[in-house]
C-alpha cells in the first residue's frame, strides 16, 4: 500500500498506461502545464507526439479522439472541466457512443474522455456540473465515477485498456484527498460496485465525491444505533446491479446520494433499478439526496446549501426510518 492524493493516483495511472502501451496517446488543452496536476510530467516523459496540447476546440478534439481511436490508437481526451463535455458533445453522442453498432462492430473505440466535475470550489454555474446522466443516456459510453485514490487509479487504468468509450469523471473537489493504493499494476473492473461499509439497517448508494459524505453520515447514524451499509457503484453507467440489489435485499432500505442535479442524477436510475428488481425486499420509500435542479450558484453559502452534505444524508435516513412500514 502507498498513500497518495487522488490527483497523483490519476497521474500514476496515465504514466503507467502510457509506459505499458505505446499506442496510448493523450490530447487536451494545456495537458502539458496541467492545471489539475493529473497530467503533469507526461509531456516531458513521452514527448509532444503522444502528449498534445490542443487548441480550445472541443468539437474537433472529441471527434479527433474518435477518429484516432478508429485508426488504431488508445486515446485519452482530457476535457478539463466536465461542463466542457457539452461543448464536445456532438462527437461523443453522435459518433463515439454509436459507431460500434452502426458498423456492426467493425469500429471499436478505445477512447477515454476525462474531466473534473462537481462543486465545492465556488467555480460557479459553468464549472460545477456533474454530468454523468447525459453521458449515460447515450448507452454506448461507460461512465466511471471514482470516489477515492485507489479507484481513481484502478478505474482509469482499466478504462484506457477498454475497447469502448469511457467517460472518466473525477471529482473536482477531491483531487487533494489522500488514500491508500495497492502497489503495482492496480486495476479495477469497470462494472464492479464496492461495499465500502458493511451494515444491516439501511443501504446508502453514494456516487463519487458523495462517498465520503455518506461515510460521515454513517458514523453519525451509528451513534443513533442505525447500522448503515454503503455501496459505491464506481461506474454510474452501466450499474453493477447485483451488488446494489444484494445490499438492498439485505437491508430493505435505500438512500441514494448523488452530487448531480436530481434531474441529471443516476439516483433515479438506481431507484428505478431497485424498484423493478428488488421491490419485494423494499420496506420503505427510496430517498434520493441530490443537488437541486439548478446550475451551481457561486456564493459559498448557496453552493454549500445546494450540494449534499452529511446532514442531508442523515436527515434522509431518518425520514426513511420514520416512513418504514407506513
Amino acid at each position: 500500500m502507498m498513500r497518495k492524493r487522488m490527483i497523483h493516483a490519476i497521474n500514476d495511472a496515465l504514466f503507467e498506461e502510457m509506459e505499458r502501451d505505446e499506442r496510448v496517446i493523450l490530447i487536451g488543452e494545456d495537458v502539458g502545464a496541467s492545471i489539475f496536476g493529473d497530467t503533469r510530467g507526461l509531456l516531458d516523459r513521452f514527448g509532444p507526439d503522444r502528449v498534445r496540447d490542443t487548441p480550445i476546440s472541443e468539437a474537433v478534439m472529441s471527434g479527433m479522439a474518435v477518429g484516432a481511436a478508429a485508426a488504431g490508437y488508445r486515446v485519452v481526451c482530457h476535457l478539463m472541466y466536465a461542463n466542457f463535455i457539452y461543448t464536445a458533445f456532438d462527437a461523443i453522442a453522435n459518433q463515439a457512443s454509436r459507431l460500434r453498432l452502426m458498423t456492426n462492430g467493425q469500429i471499436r473505440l478505445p477512447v477515454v474522455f476525462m474531466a473534473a466535475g462537481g462543486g465545492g470550489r465556488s467555480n460557479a454555474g459553468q464549472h460545477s456540473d456533474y454530468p454523468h446522466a447525459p453521458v449515460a443516456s447515450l448507452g454506448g459510453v461507460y461512465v466511471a465515477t471514482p470516489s477515492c485514490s485507489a479507484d481513481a487509479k484502478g478505474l482509469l487504468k482499466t478504462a484506457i485498456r477498454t475497447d469502448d468509450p469511457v467517460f472518466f469523471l473525477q471529482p473536482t473537489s477531491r483531487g487533494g484527498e489522500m488514500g491508500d493504493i495497492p502497489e503495482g499494476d492496480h486495476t479495477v473492473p469497470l462494472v464492479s460496485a464496492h461495499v465500502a461499509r458493511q451494515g444491516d439497517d439501511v443501504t446508502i448508494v453514494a456516487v463519487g465525491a458523495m462517498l465520503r459524505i455518506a461515510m460521515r453520515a454513517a458514523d453519525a447514524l451509528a451513534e443513533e444505533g442505525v447500522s448503515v451499509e454503503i455501496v459505491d457503484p464506481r461506474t454510474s453507467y452501466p450499474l453493477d446491479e447485483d451488488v446494489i440489489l444484494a445490499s438492498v435485499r439485505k437491508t430493505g432500505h435505500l438512500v441514494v446520494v448523488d452530487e448531480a442535479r436530481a434531474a441529471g442524477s443516476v439516483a433515479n436510475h438506481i431507484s428505478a433499478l431497485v424498484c423493478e428488481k428488488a421491490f419485494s425486499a423494499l420496506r420503505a420509500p427510496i430517498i434520493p439526496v441530490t443537488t437541486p435542479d439548478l446550475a451551481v450558484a457561486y456564493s459559498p453559502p448557496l453552493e454549500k446549501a445546494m450540494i449534499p452534505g452529511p446532514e442531508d444524508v442523515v436527515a434522509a435516513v431518518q425520514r426513511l426510518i420514520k416512513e418504514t412500514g407506513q
Partner: protein
Amino acid sequence: MISNTRAAGSLDLLRMMLTIRKAEERLASDFKAGLLPGPVHLYIGQEAVATGVCAGLDDRDWITSTHRGHGHFLAKGGDPKAMFAEIYGRSTGICGGFGGSMHVADVSKGILGANGIVGGGIALATGAALATQLDGENRVGVCFFGDGAAAQGVLGEALNVASLWKLPLILVCENNGFSEFSPSNNVIAGDIYRRAEPYGVPSVRIDGNDLDAVLDASRTALDRARNGGGGTLIEALTYRIHGHVEGEQAFLKTRYREDDEIERWRGEDPIERYARRLVDQGEMASGKFAEMEEDIGRMIKDAADCVADDPYPEIGNLERHRLGAE
C-alpha cells in the same frame, strides 16, 4: 470490378465512375419501387470527385464520408454487393444491416464510414490523419464533405489543428451547389476554398466534373501529405443531378431549382466528358464505352439482385453491440 483504384489506368477509372452511376441508378429505381426501408441520398453527377481522389489512395489510407456516401464507398474499394445488401437492410450487408445507406463503412478498406451528421466526418478524418502521422507510414486521412457542411465550425477547428500539427489531412469539399434545398450562396459566404488561407493550409478550387482535374489536384495534395507537407483543402465544383434525397417531391411544396439548370449540368456529365476525352485522345476505342456500360450495368444488376432477398439480421444480434458484450 476493381477493389482498389490506386494507380489505376484510365479505363479503370471510367469503369469506377460507371460502377457508381449504375449502382445509384439501381438504388433510385429501387426507391421508387418502395424496396428501400430508409432514405437515400444519391451521388449521381459527382462521380468524378470520389473516383479521382480515391485513385491515389489504398486500403491503409483512411476516408470519412457523408450522408451521400455510396460513391465514396465504392471508389475506395467497397464491395457493391455488400453495399446493396446493407441498404436493403440485410444481414449480408457491409454493416450487417445495422447501419444502412448513411453508415456504409468497411474498415478493412480504410472506409471509416458514411456519416449522417453533416460535418461529422471532418473531425474523424483529422483524428485518422493524426493516427497515420504517428504511425509514420506516410498514410493520409481524407474527408469528403459538402458545401453546406463547410458552415460547420468544426471545419475551422480542423484547419487550425491540421496546420499547427502539419497533419496529412485532405479535406475534399464537394460543392454541388445546394445545402439540402438552400442554394449555397444563401448559406455560404464567400469562397469555400479560401477558408483555408488564413490557417496557412494550401487550397484549390477545381472543376469537380473533370476527372483529370480531380486527379491532378488530389495527386498534388497527396504528395504533400505523404511527404510531411501537411494538409490541403480541395473545393470541387460539381452538381447533384438527383434531389437532395430520393422522393423529395413528395414533401416539397415548391421547387428549389430550374429544369434547365439540371439540363445544363447534364451536359457536363463527368462520365461522358471523361469518356469523350479518352476517345478523342485515342486511349479508348469509340465502341468501347457502350460495351463497358453494358458490362457494368449487368455486374451491378447481378450484385443487387443476388442480395435483394438475403435474410434480415437476427434480432439477437442486437445484444452483440451492448457495452460489455465482446
